[in-house]
Structures are given as C-alpha cells and as structure tokens.
C-alpha cells in the first residue's frame, strides 16, 4: 500500500466484561480501507468478542468505536449493517433449503408492489457472484454447495448489504487447500476494490499469505500490531503464546525393529472412496496419513473401523486375524477412531462431560446398572490426565472451548482402551498451546505401547508427529515415506501425483 488513509473503523480503549469477568482490557484496533487485517490469538484471547463488538453484536462496556474517525453512535445490529459492517460467522449463517438468490436477499427481499421482484434479485445475485468470480447458479439450493461456495454466498450476501467492512471469523477453518486459494483470490479482489477486511485464522501460514497487517491478542490485550511482512510465523506464534514454541512437537524416540505388530491391513476397499489399501503398524509407532482432501483418507479409516461399508482381504490386530463389520466389532478388538468433527460427530454438546466421557465405553462401568461413582472417578482422572479446563464438571460440553472439547474427545476415546488409535485432524481449530499438549499426549500414548495413526491436512503436523507417513491420492496409498523423506515437498509431490521434483510447489 502506498498511501494509508485514516482507519474506517477503530476501537479505542475498548473493554468488555461479562458480569465480574473482564475479557477485553482497553484494546485498540484499526481497520483501513483496502487492507486485510489478521486478528490472531489463542482460543480465549478475546478475538471473538472483539469481532462481535466491531460488528455490533455486543456493545462494549468501555471505550469508543470510531467509524470514519468519528465516535460512532450506532446501536443494534441493523445500524452496523446499514453502516456497511458485516460479520461472517465461522458456522455459516445460511438457510440450507433456500436457494443462493433467496439467501443473498434474505430479510431484504426486493419487491415490486406486493410481489417479489425476482428478475432484479436474480440479476443482482448474478452480479455479486460475478464480482467474486464464482460460477454458482443463483437457483441452486445452498445445501447442495461445497463449503467454499457457501463462503462465497456469504460474501455475496455481504456485497448485497453494501459491505465496506468485512469481518470474517475463521473463514478457512472448513475449507480445503485449493478452496482457501480461491477465497484468498476473492478477498484480494475485494481489498483492491477498497473493502476493509478483518479475518481470524489459526493457520499462521495463511495469515502470512493474505494479511497486510497483523494484530496479535493474548488474554484480552492487544500485545502487538505490525505489518505482516515484518513478522515471521515464529514471531506471531511467540507473540500469541507469550513463550517460545519451537518445541511444538515431541521428540521421536524411534520404533524398535522388534516391536510387536499392532495392525496389519491388506486389501482395504471402501466403495467409492478407497481401494487396495495395505499397511502395517507397530506398537509404539505413530504413522501419519497425508493427502489432499478428497483423497479418501478419512473414508478409508472410517471403513477400517466399521463406520461405513468396507471390505478387507486380511485384517490382523496384534497378530490375530479379525473381522470388523461394525463399530462394535472394532471396539471389541481395541480399534478406535477419533472423528475429525468433534461438534457434529464427536461430542454430545448439550450433555455434561461425564456422559460424554463414558458413552463409548459404558460396558466398563457396570454390567447392568451404571456405576456413577466409577464414572465420576474416571472423569476426575481424565481431567487430570488431559488437562481439561472447565469451570464446573457439569457444564454442557458445548460451552467448553474448542481445545478443551478436543481434549475431552481424546479422553473419551481413550476410555475404550484402544490398542490401535486412529485420530483424524486431532488439532483442527484449536490454539497452538493446546496443540502442543495434544501432540505430547499422542506421543505419550504411543510410548505406552499403543499404535497410532494420525490423519491430518496440516502437513507440519504430519511431519512433526509421524515415524512414518503414508500419502494417499485418489483412494490409494501413493507412497510410504520414512526418515528424511518425511518433508513437505516430497509429501506434496506424492499427494498431487507428480513424481518429478521440478514441478512447481503448491502453496
């Protein structure tokens, strides 16, 4: 940016308290037209509250909001929207059964007389989508769209509200790598057209790629604001955590050559997703499974664990041939899968921690009548073992932070005492401090003699954790990598199917 005009939207000394708990302590934030600001921080640092104040969802308890340099007297969501400030939620705010066009104009339908002016709405929707380079048909029901297209519809909706300030809460959390690229291309289009964009992400690589400036929050304070190119990813992480995080991944002790075989899979077929998957896993070993989204990683593992229809020509657990046709079979053989989607598949969000913890292993808590005392002791133990931080044991799990939910999910899976543990995206959407803890837990579980498979889209995670890496492409294992071959370039080459090293690197 050559010239930096005054900020279009600012917070000056803004504080926020919920009852006696102060979550924001006099923070200053500036959004400039034609710039992308990344707001980063660990879970609980105050990012969400800051965004809600910026977008008018919550009033601050102290300080001022400046709009175009003037103290804003806006009150209520509608007033903020009329001022051109739009917040896009992490969980999309779209009516799934309605079409794209209906969603874009939801609540602000154009009319001609008493009837809807469909022609104009269709044409405007088309315009907005064109501006975003998005080829979606306005007549498509939103439920049929991919996550990235839904994101585009959200942005189109914001355009329809003449947004000049766009606030995006973790827009990339649900997107695949190429979808992220598309989104960023479109954010750049909006930025160049003069929109001020604020976004949050846990992926620091993305922050470095898209942001012009970065504001780092920690414990309700702004600890640093700087130009993006003035900060390395390490700088960002250190500022977020407040300590050095270079030891993010635990040391790899190596797997003894004579370690017993924990799992041997041959000819695993998951119709429509994966075929002819074969691999071995030793006790104490952590094997990473990398691959692009859609490469069948998750589906192959779900098939292996009886969660979806699948066949194997041979399956051995601890040297014994077994058959797994259902999740109950898998459980009985000590084969457990931890889902990538903790909110929709992993935890009962309206229930307490105890019910969640023991759900998968209730048979261990009494033959006929459940021993609640034993459940409570198990919860006490799990809270200690996995450092789960909840104010109160009976709080609904949906109110826990993402990191604590993930720890609880891991604790829940461990209740069934798996010999072979498959974890899918074990650190999705959680802060770096909690990630470090989860990596340490996984290594500790391996050291106890369990065999662990880590499925992840984050290459750094796969590289940092795994003793060996399987790369999947189009439903097959494209490569098995060990030692020095476990690096980003090699994994990516196999994942996208270009064997020769001279091809350009996908970022």
């Amino acid at each position: 940016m050559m010239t930096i005009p005054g900020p279009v939207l600012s917070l000056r000394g803004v504080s926020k308290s919920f009852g006696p708990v102060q979550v924001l302590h006099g923070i200053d934030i500036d959004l400039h037209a034609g710039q992308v600001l990344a707001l980063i921080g660990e879970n609980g640092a105050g990012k969400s509250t800051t965004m809600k104040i910026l977008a008018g969802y919550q009033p601050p308890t102290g300080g001022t909001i400046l709009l175009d340099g003037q103290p804003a007297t806006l009150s209520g969501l509608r007033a903020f929207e009329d001022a051109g400030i739009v917040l896009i939620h992490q969980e999309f705010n779209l009516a799934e059964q309605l079409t794209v066009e209906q969603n874009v104009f939801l609540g602000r339908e154009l009319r001609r007389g008493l009837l809807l002016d469909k022609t104009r709405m269709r044409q405007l929707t088309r315009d907005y989508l064109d501006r975003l380079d998005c080829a979606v048909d306005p007549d498509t029901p939103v439920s049929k769209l991919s996550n990235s297209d839904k994101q585009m519809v959200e942005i189109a909706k914001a355009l329809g509200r003449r947004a000049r300030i766009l606030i995006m809460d973790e827009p990339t959390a649900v997107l695949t790598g190429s979808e992220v690229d598309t989104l960023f291309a479109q954010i750049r289009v909006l930025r160049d057209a003069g929109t001020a964009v604020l976004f949050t992400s846990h992926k620091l690589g993305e922050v470095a790629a898209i942001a012009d400036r970065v504001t780092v929050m920690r414990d309700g304070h702004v600890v640093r604001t700087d130009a993006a190119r003035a900060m390395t990813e390490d700088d960002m992480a250190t500022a977020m955590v407040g300590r050095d995080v270079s030891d993010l991944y635990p040391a790899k002790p190596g797997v003894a050559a004579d370690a017993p075989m924990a799992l041997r899979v041959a000819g695993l077929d998951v119709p429509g997703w994966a075929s002819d998957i074969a691999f071995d896993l030793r006790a104490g070993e952590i094997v990473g499974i990398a691959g692009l989204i859609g490469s069948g990683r998750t589906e192959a593992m779900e098939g292996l664990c009886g969660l979806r229809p699948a066949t194997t020509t041979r399956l051995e657990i601890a040297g014994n041939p077994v058959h797994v046709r259902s999740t109950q079979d898998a459980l009985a053989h000590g084969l457990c899968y931890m889902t990538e989607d903790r909110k929709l598949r992993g935890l009962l969000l309206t229930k307490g921690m105890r019910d969640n913890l023991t759900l998968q292993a209730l048979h261990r808590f009494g033959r006929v009548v459940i021993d609640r005392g034993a459940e409570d002791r198990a919860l006490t133990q799990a809270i200690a073992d996995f450092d789960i931080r909840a104010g109160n044991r009976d709080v609904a799990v949906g109110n826990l932070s993402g990191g604590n939910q993930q720890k609880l999910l891991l604790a829940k899976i461990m209740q069934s005492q798996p010999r072979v543990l498959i974890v899918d995206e074990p650190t999705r959407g959680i802060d770096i401090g909690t990630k470090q803890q989860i990596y340490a837990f996984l290594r500790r579980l391996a050291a106890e003699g369990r065999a662990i498979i880590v499925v992840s889209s984050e290459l750094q995670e796969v590289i940092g954790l795994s003793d060996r890496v399987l790369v999947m492409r189009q439903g097959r294992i494209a490569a098995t990598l060990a030692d020095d071959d476990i690096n980003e370039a090699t994994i990516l080459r196999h994942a996208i199917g270009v064997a020769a090293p001279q091809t350009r690197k996908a970022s």
Partner: protein
Amino acid sequence: MTTQTVTTRTPPPRRLPSMSVLGPILALVILVIVGALMNSSFLSAGNINNVLSRSAFIGIIAVGMTFVITAGGLDLSVGSMAAFIAGLMILVMNAALPSLGVGVPIILLGMAVALVAGILAGLLNGFFITTLGIEAFIVTLGSMGIYRSLVTWLADGGTLSLDFDLRTFYRPVYFDGILGIAWPIIVFAAVVIVGEILMSRTRFGRHCAATGSNAHVAHYSAVNVDRTRLATYAMLGLLVGVATIMYVPRLGSASASTGVLWELEAIAAVIIGGTVLKGGFGRVWGTVIGVLILGLIDNILNLTDLVSPYLNGAIQGVIIVLAVILQREAKAKG
C-alpha cells in the same frame, strides 16, 4: 483458572436448571391442594385409587413413549394400537372359549396375544423408521390410521364384547388388587420403577439419550443407533400390550372409539414431565408427574362444578403449552 480441588464427594447433579425439575412437581402439589380444598372426598382412598387406576393405562404407555421420544422418535399410533390389540384379544379369547373354557389358561392366552401383538406392532413401526429410514411421524401416522380402521372393521363398525362369563372372571384384574391398591396401579408402579432404572442407570437409557441428542455422535461412539431406536418402539409396543391387558377387564369391550387420543395424552404427559420433544433428554419420573397432572385435572373438574368437565381438553392444552414455555425459560436462564 481457579485452583479448586476436586472433592471426592460427588457433586449434586445440577445439569438441569431447577425450574424444569421443580415446575411439574410444584404444579402437581398445587393441583392436590386445590383438589383437597374444593372437595372433601378428593383425598379419600377411594378417589385416589380411582384416579390412579384410570391414569395407569396412559401412564404405562407414556413410560414407553418417554423412551421413544428421548431417542429422537415419536409414536402417534399407540391409541389405535391399544384399540386394535384389545379387539384382537377379545376375538381370540372368545374364539378359544369353547376349547379352553373359562379359567386362568384363557386369560393367559389373551395376555400373551396382547403382549406379542404389541411387540410386533412396535417392531413394525420401528422397522419402517430405522431400516427404511422413513420419518417416525409419517410411519406412525399411517399405522395409527391402519389400526383404527382394522379395529372398526373387526367390530364391523360396532363393538367387540368379551363373553359375559369370561368378563366376570377377568374383571378382578382391573378392579381387585393387593392391600386395597388396584392391580393397574401396581403394574403401573412396577413399569415406572423398571423404566426409571432403565432410563437413568443403564447403558440402554444412555444410548437412547445419546441417539436422540445426536445420532451421528452416537454412531461414532459405537452405539448401535438403529437397534436402540428399534428397541424403543418394540418396548413401547409391549407396554401398549400391558396397558391393554389392564384395560380390557374394565369395560370388557373394544370399539372404534377405544383409546382415542391416548397417543396425545401420552405425549403430553411426557412433555409436561420435562422430556425434550426433540429427543436427547428424558426422565421417567417426570412422565409419571405429567400423567398424574393430567389425571388430576380431569378428576377435579368432575368432582367440582366450577368449570364444566367439557373444558378438560382446553385446560390440558393450556398446561402443555405452559410446561414447554417454562422449560424454555429455564433453559435460557441456565
């Protein structure tokens, strides 16, 4: 983070806001006080026995309904199912009369028919809902029509009556009891105790709540979702059979008007008792309170002449809506 050490004493279960627990109990207590003030015979043993016996049929069914709703389902067919089972029972017993004669065996045969028919009817509902994946509302709306029509057809539009001698022999199952407590009440109490333990203390109860709360999570937690749901419908069918066994000796007949609106009363009792209609949370003891509230309103209106008994349905309707509003407010606060 407060460094509060976890005490070994288990904390009191405070998962639910107190209003949703206290509300139904409070309403019941108020009803009892109102009833006692309005009519001196309200608290007599005879009246209490009468109210409880009449409530027992709906109550037994409502316990089963609690499980179905908790597991995320619904069954609209129970009233028609009860009428059909009653008709079937009467037909079979009348037909077996020449060969078996009046006695215990023929009663046992009738009971067996009721229980088997109930389980089968429940399994059939459950099969369409789980295996074929059709909405519970649609399936049971369909079977509701089918059973109602079948019983009308079996009775040829009139009434199916149990043979007079048989009826006299069977009567004590409704009218007698132990220590002055009628059999329907005893059976109801037994069903409630077993149901409460099943719901709150066993794997099956937890699996029902997990399934109703989020079927995906339950599936990924190695819960057999389909079998759990099927079991709730079969169990409800069985309990409809049990209720019919207690009901037939009362009148000794079945017709197209038998068990009309029982399904709504059972569902209402479940909801008033604090079970969540969308599923995921249910409590059997709450259902019992719901049943008693509905039964007492009916009884009080019959005993006093302040309000016409014809307005019973209106008052019940108001209470159902009130119960749900109270639950929602409690949830919002909590």
